[in-house]
């Protein structure tokens, strides 16, 4: 009998030639998908060209998603997108997306069934950890790692220690996956899970959607984690079965698997969270944030964290028939073309525009201060994105407050950080 393993250890082990593994071991693992975007892939492509291989390891296991600065924001970013396009053409990369097909990578790949449970995924983007929601092991790496993986189909990985995070109980109204992860980061800090795998479980997740799980896994990196994983269940199966075009494997942790520690939280005690500048760990109850009377200039609803249809629906339910505050901007960014079309059909785009907001094509855009909603000096934004570092969305003196889409919608209406209860 081999020693009991966590889901993370099982997936990594299954992608090696080894018979056993322990946390701390450094292994070479086969990757199912290697991912890059228009910022990270150009460096990877430059490095790939120096390796001396005549082809990529597998043209059906590489995903190139130009999503950060597209539609091209300027000439320099147009060149970067062109680099991806030419590489994709040259090596006939199956998962390359263009124009009306392209969406934010971490929303697009699960939606299109490209990443599946049991996969091992590396991506030159820190939010690659998002796919943990599917029961896959996925982690962010750099461009050099991507170049190596595109050539050999392998990546070196240190088997991480796991922390088990249990949320039990029915979530309160307006509480979403975003609030649970902001709450957790507030408890353990931005370095609280550095190098480790977070494994989420508990009865709370029966009440929430896949979109909530994606938000949670997505922000595991904001606690420093290597990955944030869920064991697949019927909710995962329902999401995956209609999308998968190849076989996949469901892994579950052994009952006596070893964890560095177990953290348990009572979800009933958690309210929507707002993370104050300039770290995601500065999270407080939305009521506390609202009491501070913080005027906002901009509200952003979108990103790989919260740009899914469920996010747009809840924002629209609050904005319906209302107007955003004068001198306040609302920017809504559906994360993928499929989400955009669904929002259109469901009348959500009408609601956002009638409220005075703008709706952008899918892009990471303002989340990283790229374009499509940059802040001027001294401006404040509430945002459903994932980072509120100094200068993240624009000028170094601007401020970003992180929250769920409902809080962002409510705040756009009042022009200050507000709980959805104040406008609903």
């Amino acid at each position: 009998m081999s020693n009991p393993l966590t889901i993370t250890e099982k997936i990594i082990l299954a992608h090696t030639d080894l018979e056993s593994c322990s946390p701390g071991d450094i292994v070479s693992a086969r990757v199912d998908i290697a991912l890059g975007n228009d910022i990270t892939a150009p460096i990877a492509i430059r490095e790939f060209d120096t390796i001396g291989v005549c082809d990529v390891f597998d043209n059906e296991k590489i995903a190139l998603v130009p999503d950060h600065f597209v539609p091209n924001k300027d000439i320099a970013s147009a060149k970067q997108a062109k680099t991806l396009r030419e590489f994709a053409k040259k090596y006939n990369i199956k998962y390359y997306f263009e124009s009306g097909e392209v969406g934010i990578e971490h929303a697009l790949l699960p939606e299109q069934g490209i990443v599946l449970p049991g996969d091992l995924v590396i991506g030159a983007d820190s939010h690659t950890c998002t796919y943990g929601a599917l029961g896959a092991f996925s982690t962010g790496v750099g461009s050099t790692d991507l170049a190596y993986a595109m050539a050999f189909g392998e990546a070196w990985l240190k088997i991480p220690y796991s922390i088990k995070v249990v949320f039990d109980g029915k979530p309160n109204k307006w509480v979403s996956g975003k609030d649970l992860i902001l709450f957790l980061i507030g408890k353990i800090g931005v370095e609280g899970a550095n190098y480790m795998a977070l494994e989420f479980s508990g009865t709370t997740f029966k009440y929430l959607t896949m979109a909530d799980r994606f938000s949670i896994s997505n922000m595991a990196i904001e606690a420093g984690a290597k990955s944030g994983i869920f064991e697949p269940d019927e909710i995962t199966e329902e999401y995956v079965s209609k999308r998968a075009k190849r076989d996949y494997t469901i892994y579950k942790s052994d009952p006596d698997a070893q964890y560095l520690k177990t953290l348990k939280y009572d979800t009933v005690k958690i309210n929507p969270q707002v993370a104050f500048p300039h770290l995601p760990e500065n999270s407080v109850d939305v009521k506390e944030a609202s009491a501070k009377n913080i005027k906002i200039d901009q509200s952003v609803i979108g990103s790989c964290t919260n740009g899914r249809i469920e996010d747009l629906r809840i924002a629209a339910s609050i904005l319906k028939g209302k107007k955003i505050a004068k001198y306040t901007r609302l920017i809504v960014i559906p994360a993928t073309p499929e989400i955009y079309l669904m929002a259109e059909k469901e009348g959500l785009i009408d609601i956002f525009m009638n409220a005075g907001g703008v709706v952008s094509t899918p892009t990471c855009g303002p989340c990283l201060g790229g374009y499509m909603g940059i802040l001027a000096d001294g401006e404040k934004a509430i945002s459903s994105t994932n980072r509120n570092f100094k200068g993240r969305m624009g000028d170094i003196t601007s401020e970003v407050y992180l929250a769920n889409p409902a809080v962002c919608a409510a705040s756009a209406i009042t022009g200050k950080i507000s709980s959805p209860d104040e406008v609903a």
Partner: protein
Amino acid sequence: MLLKGKVFKFADNIDTDAIIPARYLNDSDPENLRKHCMEDADPSFASKVNKGDFIAAGVNFGCGSSREHAPIAIKASGVPLVIAKSFARIFYRNSFNIGLLILEADTDSIDSEDVLEVDTDKGEIKNITKNITVYAKPIPKFMAELVSAGGLMEHARKRVKKEGELKK
């Protein structure tokens, strides 16, 4: 390797947006990245830093984005070594992959302008200015081998050559 240089000291949680802001990521040329290195943490860094100077910092250096532009910008600035209490995972990995030396050590006694003499093999960090010596955590064997192989791409090129010869 023996290194001697002057320190630029930074605080805890220096994120990759501070090391190289996203507004400059429409270009990956090391020389262009160098011009904006550390800009949102210290706007004067790029104009003040000299070849051989060190960066020292508190905990969680390099947190946030996976952008390899961050260690590339530091390396292009002529900084051969970053010493911090701890590093965020992806930054740590990227630095080894591209051959930027990083050491984990207690940096409380190190301040800006201090002159350090560092024996990277022993992990010995001598603060000449303050006459204090601190020791870095040993580098894992695999990582040390990666550095001595010349980084991940050099390892990749050797692998292609070796596998090519095996096929012959």
